[in-house]
């Protein structure tokens, strides 16, 4: 006698109220499981099994998503000990590293995942480019991907300032002066980004809000469109006839 009667649970009233498709192994049921789930419905209900092999994608897009999920899962707990203010930011970072239980683990995981995400985004883009998977009808999704690359880089850049150490301060001083090189509006852009003329309390707070709220929300919105477009553009790119 099974301890956990899965089929019975899946037929229960509570289960059926949550998952509308119910159980069953028909093609219709299997399609409904994907189609009627708010998260899974972004994906295709059917796929060529060949495109799920390692070779076509090296799973680089999925790995990028995983690194983003790790960054959110480690970043939110880090926010509980970090105050984005000039007198506290540096010592909070030091506390996270040396005083808070598991703080060093969370901080280092956040850091390494950030490095991994930048690397994976580039690898994913190279893979898509060299396979020719950016070509019509997938050209719009390539465009979305370029914006996701920019958001990834901006997330790295804004996160760089938050430890508020010498490296952070001078890196952002140099980086924001590079922004000043934009013709005509460069100086104004730097002023708005920093909320002042120097990297100071306003800049720290603005970078914090960008890093923890605005950029992640933008990333989630664009990632949703990115995945939905894979389905709408005919699924993962299967490769040219000659490659088969």
């Amino acid at each position: 006698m099974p301890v956990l009667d899965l089929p019975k649970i899946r037929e229960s009233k509570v289960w059926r109220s949550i998952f509308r498709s119910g159980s069953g192994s028909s093609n219709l049921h299997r399609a409904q499981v994907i189609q009627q789930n708010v998260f899974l419905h972004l994906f295709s209900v059917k796929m060529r099994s060949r495109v799920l092999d390692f070779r076509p994608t090296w799973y680089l897009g999925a790995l990028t998503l995983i690194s983003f999920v790790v960054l959110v899962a480690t970043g939110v707990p880090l926010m509980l000990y970090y105050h984005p203010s000039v007198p506290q930011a540096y010592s909070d970072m030091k506390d996270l590293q040396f005083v808070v239980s598991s703080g060093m683990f969370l901080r280092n995981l956040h850091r390494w995942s950030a490095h991994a995400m930048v690397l994976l985004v580039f690898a994913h883009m190279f893979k898509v480019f060299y396979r020719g998977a950016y070509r019509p009808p997938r050209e719009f999704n390539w465009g979305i991907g370029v914006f996701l690359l920019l958001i990834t880089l901006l997330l790295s850049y804004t996160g760089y300032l938050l430890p508020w150490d010498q490296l952070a301060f001078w890196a952002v001083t140099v980086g924001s002066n590079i922004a000043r090189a934009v013709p005509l509006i460069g100086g104004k852009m730097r002023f708005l980004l920093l909320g002042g003329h120097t990297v100071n309390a306003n800049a720290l707070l603005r970078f914090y809000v960008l890093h923890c709220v605005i950029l992640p929300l933008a990333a989630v919105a664009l990632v949703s469109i990115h995945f939905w477009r894979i389905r709408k553009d005919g699924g993962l790119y299967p490769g040219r006839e000659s490659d088969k």
Partner: protein
Amino acid sequence: MAEEKNKNALPDSSRRRFVLVGMSSLALVGVGSAIAGYEYLSPNVLYEPSPVVNAGKPDGYPADSVSLDPQSGIYLVHASEGFYALASICTHLGCMTAWKPELSMIACPCHGSRFTREGVKIAGPAPRPLPWLRVWMSDEGELMVDRSTIVVPKTYVRV
């Protein structure tokens, strides 16, 4: 029934007008929000340090010396012609330069720009010389520097 529907239906021109007025109002609101958003994002009051710095009595600077105050980001130079002040912020990308007495040069640690103690560029990516800042003597006999006012080079203050 069909006739009644036709009676209630708006004439085409009035629907067109509604869409036009609606769209222009939305565009107006959009422009207004963009302006208000820009105004909101640029701070009206900045709690940044004053550009005017008190550099203290001239006696504190021995003859033929270059002194960097990292807090205010200025060099005070006591040359044979008199006193002058240079901004220590590199004109390349804003790093803090340092006086290297062993080389008799000002050097930037970030990208290797080098300047003479008159601020003239010797090497590196810096596009401009280090600017000379306005210096004057206060009534209390202290050297004052205005970091926001650039003067022509070779403007010395004699004590």
